């Protein structure tokens, strides 16, 4: 992982860290985190020095949740459509520069030029924990779900590894590990293909009143966590002070991960390597908007049904030749 630190980001990080520590506003009171209120994280991208402490801590505390495939991978059918995704080999497990089932957080570097000045910004990337998450809404088995505190999780004992969550996620965050999960006990070759994994915001640590590992260990206090309304307010305050930009507040209808940067996110997006396991920073429209508009149809439908029957009854009255009821309905 890169340890490069530009002079500009070092000075800014030092000043902001000092200010933040002095104000003791970096962490929220334990009661706020455990209360079940919608929690949101705020990441000040000026402060990240890409030391990798968050990535390491994430891997360490979540190790027990990582997949543990046993035996050979199933021979999937059809082979050319269903690819095995095996990240369990030692060399693949150690990959930490992209998202994998064994690496739920990575640092995405963005190097470029903005307003005639060179920049080097490091972006911790993981699940955005969307407010109305398509992965959670569209999972056909209920394996993906959203907690009341805004954490979006995938339950490894229920997930079939169909990767629908990855397909509908605007950032394609969840990653598959084949050869594990419920599908092995059902129709291993014909349905499912492992389990999908992603950041669960250390839900178990939060439940115990602790901070998520990535926030807890960060030496630069890049992240804050707290009730969403407070975090959004802070994000706007910070962008005003630094003349910066926000990402995550409105993307995909709003997420519970908000990035603040002195460089616009479309510039950062162009300056990052994107691809499988390396999400973009581009625009993301509300992916559930059309499905939720369709929900109106379920309200209109019964009203239309009743109105239709009444209208037909009134228009035909009792004069309809109803003496032939002997005919059966199919």
């Amino acid at each position: 992982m890169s340890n490069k630190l530009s002079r500009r980001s070092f000075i800014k990080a030092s000043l902001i860290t000092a200010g933040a520590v002095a104000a003791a506003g970096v962490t929220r009171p334990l009661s706020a985190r455990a209360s079940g209120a919608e929690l949101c994280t705020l990441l000040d991208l000026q402060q990240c020095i890409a030391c990798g402490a968050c990535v390491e801590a994430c891997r360490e505390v979540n190790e027990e949740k990582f997949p543990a495939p046993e035996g050979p991978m199933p021979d999937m059918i059809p082979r050319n459509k269903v690819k095995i995704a095996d990240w369990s080999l030692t060399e693949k497990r150690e990959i930490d520069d992209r998202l994998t089932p064994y690496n739920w957080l990575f640092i995405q570097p963005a190097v470029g030029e903005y307003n005639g000045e060179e920049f080097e910004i490091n972006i911790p990337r993981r699940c955005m924990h969307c407010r109305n998450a398509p992965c959670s809404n569209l999972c056909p088995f209920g394996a993906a779900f959203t907690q009341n505190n805004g954490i979006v999780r995938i339950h490894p004992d229920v997930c079939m590894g169909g990767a629908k969550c990855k397909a509908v996620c605007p950032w394609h965050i969840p990653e598959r590990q084949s050869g594990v999960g419920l599908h092995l006990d059902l129709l291993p070759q014909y349905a499912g293909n492992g389990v999908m994994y992603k950041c669960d915001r250390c839900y178990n640590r939060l439940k115990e009143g602790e901070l998520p590992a990535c926030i807890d260990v960060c030496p630069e206090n890049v992240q804050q966590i707290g009730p969403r309304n407070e975090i959004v307010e802070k994000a706007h305050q910070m962008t005003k002070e630094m003349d910066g930009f926000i990402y995550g507040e409105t993307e995909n209808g709003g997420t519970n991960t908000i990035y603040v940067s002195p460089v616009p996110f479309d510039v950062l997006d162009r300056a990052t390597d994107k691809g499988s396991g390396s999400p973009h920073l581009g625009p993301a429209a509300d992916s559930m908007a059309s499905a939720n508009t369709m929900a109106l149809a379920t309200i209109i439908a019964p009203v239309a049904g009743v109105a239709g029957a009444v209208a037909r009854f009134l228009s035909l009255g009792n004069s309809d030749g109803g003496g032939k009821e002997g005919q059966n309905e199919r």
Partner: protein
Amino acid sequence: MNAKPHLLLKILYGAAAVTALFTGFGNMPLWGRYYVADLPGLEWSGDFFINVNVHILAGSLLLCIATYVLTATMMDERLRNSRMTLSGRIRGFLLAMALATGILMVVKNLPGVHFPMATLIVFNFAHMTAALLFMIAGLLSLIFRHPWRQIR
């Protein structure tokens, strides 16, 4: 109103049921894996967002038809001369189950609505089971020509 359903109603019911079942399987997701989305004209079935939208629309049409038929039955005394067959009652129950759980799933998708995981699993599996059994019951009724209703 006549006890014999209007032809248009039968066509709409059949089309909505087939579409709801087809897109239901597409939501699983199966059509991308098993080449259905590769067929000309069915590429849309591999797109989960189109699939879910069509699924909701088809389900809404079934809901509309169900409420139409129920209201008509209550209003028209001549329909009371006929009774639901066992096959009709089974299909009606399964359809009602599929529709009720389907509505809960639509509600679940709205912003700010979060159900616990256990509830979600119950809804999902109840919806799938009811729809599958409805499909089987519907096919059997079609093959063995079992009507919904019969004259008393």
